[in-house]
């Protein structure tokens, strides 16, 4: 008797259960998208800290370089201009919005390129190259660059996971409803590493 009553109750409310199941599924999907977006934002914060560190280190490098590199005025000015631009973008109230992030990454990439050129140019100035302060500044700069590279790889992995979640149905619908948008990848040129010599290994 009780068995029959339970069976009838279940049959009468089957639509409700399907709806409930669907709601739970959508919530789990939604929660997964939000988790991935937050992870990407967390990864972005990691890069942001390192990019700010780099911007803070540049004046030190420039001050030392200016004493010796009279012929590289244009390059030094370009680095100064890009650093100012980067700092302006970092302080922007919308700095963590997707469109601004993309713009920032572009400027940061330009700054990285110019700094790379500056570091290569240092090689042409023996006095500067052997200057203790310059050596220390270069080491600190290289350390930050390596941190940026690692943080960038983490950020791109997090962004990739977010994109997969919000581009595949029904993730795209849920993302559209709650306003989760794509975040840009951070593409930057890897600094050329000194070639490994077999004689160093064997």
């Amino acid at each position: 008797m009780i068995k029959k009553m339970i069976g009838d109750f279940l049959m009468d409310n089957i639509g409700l259960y399907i709806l409930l199941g669907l709601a739970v599924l959508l919530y789990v999907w939604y929660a997964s998208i939000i988790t991935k977006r937050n992870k990407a934002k967390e990864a972005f914060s990691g890069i942001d800290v390192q990019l700010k560190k780099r911007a803070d280190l540049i004046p030190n490098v420039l001050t030392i370089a200016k004493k010796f590199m009279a012929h590289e005025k244009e390059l030094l000015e370009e680095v100064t201009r890009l650093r100012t631009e980067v700092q302006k973008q970092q302080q922007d109230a919308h700095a963590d919005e997707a469109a601004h992030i993309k713009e920032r990454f572009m400027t940061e990439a330009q700054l990285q390129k110019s700094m790379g050129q500056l570091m290569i140019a240092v090689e042409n100035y023996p006095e500067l190259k052997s200057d203790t302060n310059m050596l220390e500044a270069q080491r600190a700069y290289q350390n930050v660059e390596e941190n940026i590279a690692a943080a960038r790889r983490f950020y791109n992995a997090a962004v990739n996971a977010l994109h997969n979640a919000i581009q595949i149905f029904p993730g795209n619908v849920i993302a559209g409803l709650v306003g989760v948008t794509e975040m840009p990848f951070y593409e930057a040129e890897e600094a050329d590493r000194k070639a490994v010599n077999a004689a160093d290994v064997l």
Partner: protein
Amino acid sequence: MSITQQMDEKIAEIQAELAPKFKYVEQFRQQYFKDTLIHAVLIAAVLILVALTGIDIFFVFGLGSLGGVYLTYRQYTYTHKVKEEAIKPMAELLDLKYIPSGSYDILQQAKQANIIPTYNRGGVEDGFIGKVKDTEFEFTEAHLKYESGSGKNKSVKRVFDGGLMRFKLPYHVNEDVLILTDKGMFNSLKNMTQKFSGMQHIALEDPRFEEIYQAYGTDQVEARRVLTPLFMDVLANLKERFDIKIANKSSGLSIGRKSCDIQMLFSGNTLLLSLNYKGDYFEPGLMYKSLDVDWISDMVEDFALMRFIASSLKVQQHNYAHTQVK
């Protein structure tokens, strides 16, 4: 010329230098085996004669056992000779120091790092120490067993027959990074158990590395500082190389296993790596068998790869070292 081509040339030079030594060892083996065979025939003849005189059978068995001990001693001497005449010079040509007894210290560290299976019996042998620039590294072979039960229920299982490597890192790793061989469908279980120890799965961008390994760490960025693209490539090569060797049943690696199990841990100033290839790599085999010419050549390539692992650690992080060493 690429680094691979340069290395191949250098390896070929070392292999060519070793060829005469290998030829000498093979000549020695042939003569030594002939002598041993004559000794065995003489021992057998003496035993038969003694048995025919009607002497106590236990005395004959006793003499037979002594003959067995003598033959074992001959095998041991032959193994020792091969190690002295072929493996030691190979190590010297690769700028490595050969220590026949191995290193217990690495075994203890690997046990603490939990990168080898639980064991209660076993030991180490065949150790090598080297240095590439400022990066010191060591290798030792370990043979470990797990004994359980007692009396009739006693069972002994071989749990590890492979190499243990220790690299002294030119930088300090603040958060541990663990790398395990990919376990396919069992990865989810592994991910869960690692979560309990506070580690999370690190998804990396190299598809070849991702197919072979699973990386875990407490800090996503720190893990990527350690697992640089070059280093991931080197680790993938290591696994593929030993899997091929196992599939081809290369000398010393034929105790029946489908693939090589690799585990490693970056912690502090050390990288520990266990390579369970299920073999006794540095044993030349029984003296009646011809020495495998590829055996030493393969060994040269393996240690060249080990040196390359050490150098890739150094090359990648040359500047990181300066600011991060504690």
